[in-house]
């Protein structure tokens, strides 16, 4: 099983580490995830909380219990909108949004997500960045919607045309000059991510 890399101020993951230690080690910076007191402020502050199978509070209890597969299968991290309300309200100053990013990455590595559409959106975005060094809205929207919401395309066409008409969308992507340099940096980073 692929394990997300141990890069954090915390110690690297020892053999036989708990799932909690693994998640903390994979989260850059100090996540403080082990400090959760189960108060539920996070779930109550979350704009997409009602749609989540597990609120962050519940998810963190499951992490402590080592329920790895159930945690990585949860739709909760994928519904996180990165608004950081939970993070600034958490009385224990846990970097909740950052932990959600970690869980998404771990779910992708372990192929445990159930709804393919959010990870595919992220991966399509990454793909454009890794080819051009910039994002490309038209390609991203078209590729993603063709694959996941083909029936929505006729409905979305007016918006796309509206963007083009207003000069708010490019027809072709822009490639940065230092693409080779960026590729070397990202490849090195991924290699370090896999071996550390």
């Amino acid at each position, binding site marked *: 099983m692929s394990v*997300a890399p141990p*890069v*954090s*101020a915390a110690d690297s993951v020892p053999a036989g580490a708990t799932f909690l230690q693994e998640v903390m080690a*994979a989260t*850059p*910076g*100090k996540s403080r995830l082990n400090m959760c007191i189960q108060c539920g402020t996070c779930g109550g502050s979350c*704009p*997409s909380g009602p*749609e989540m199978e597990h609120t962050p509070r519940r998810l963190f209890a499951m992490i402590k219990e080592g329920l790895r597969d159930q945690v990585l299968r949860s739709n909760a991290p994928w*519904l996180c*909108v*990165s*608004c*950081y*309300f939970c*993070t*600034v309200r958490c009385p224990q100053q846990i*970097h909740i949004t950052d932990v959600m*990013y970690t869980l*998404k*990455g771990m779910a*992708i590595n372990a192929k445990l997500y159930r709804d393919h559409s959010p*990870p595919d*959106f*992220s*991966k399509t*975005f*990454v793909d454009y*960045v890794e080819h051009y*060094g*910039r*994002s490309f*809205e038209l390609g991203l929207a078209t590729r993603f*919607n063709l694959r996941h919401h083909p029936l929505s395309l006729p*409905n979305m066409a007016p*918006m796309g045309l*509206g*963007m083009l008409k*207003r*000069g*708010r969308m*490019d027809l072709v992507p*822009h490639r*940065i*000059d*230092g693409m080779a*340099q*960026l590729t*070397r*940096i*990202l*490849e*090195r*980073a*991924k290699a*370090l*991510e896999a071996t*550390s």
Partner: protein
Amino acid sequence: MKMLFYPGCSMQRTARPYLDSLLAIREAIGLELEDVSDWNCCGATEYMSVHRIAAHALVGRNLALASRQAEGTDTLTAGCSACYLNLAKTDQQMREDPRLRTTVNEALAAGGLSYEPGSLKVRHLLDVVCNDVGYEAVKAQVVRPLYGLKLAPYYGCQVVRPDPDSRWDDREQPVAMDRLLRALGAEVVDYTLKTQCCGGHMTVIGPEIAYGLIRRLVHGAAAAGADAIVTLCPMCQLNLDAYQVEMNKFFKTDYAVPVLYFTQLMGLAFGRSPAELGIGKEFIAAAPALARIQDEPPPAVEAKKKRRPRAEDGLPMPRMG
């Protein structure tokens, strides 16, 4: 005031009016902006979901290029919320986490670059305008005050939260932009939803959730009597403007609240033409709202004399003495 500028992908296109209006006003407020040369995408909220560490190397290249270019300034500013936060967070987490600092620099070395965390000050454009340029200097440039225009200041999420360098007055109810808009002569409505989420990438991957959030924000502004919502982020503008149309279809509503950038309103108050500021490129036309700008300030409403609270106003409470 010289500083390095990270435009970001959105400002190049979807938020072109934001960039155009910034370029139109920068001289008036004494901002000398130097683009970070050959910058790459910040990764938005997507890259770090797939590659947790490489995401910081992606941002690290921008920080490294900017610090190499920095001469006569150590400030790096961005107009987009996500770009600003990614730059600020990578800098802050590299400071906080020695292992991350080492890893990112090892990766950057593969491209002949390096970055010393803390060597740049990463600031959002609104922060620079409010705190470095200052309200008085902005006011001094106003030739056509926005009298009578009622505005809902919308900050969104990522500029005021998590606020890694504690730059803002409040993470949930900030007032920096409120004061800026008042300095332009506009009236600021009470908009308590000012830092609630616009839906972010949910408009694409989970539209039903996003439409609910967009409806709440648009309804809140309309109910508060706002002529327009004012934003500081390309994603917020896109979601509240272009997706307001989709949201109306979804809920069978007919909201029409235009969404403008704060730089566009500054430009108007500085006497620039709407076309020069990219006004007219929004989906919900701003022209009808802007036609409500008056030549004279609205008559001051006399503040009601405060009434001394009476005993019968509150719940029965034990009284001292």
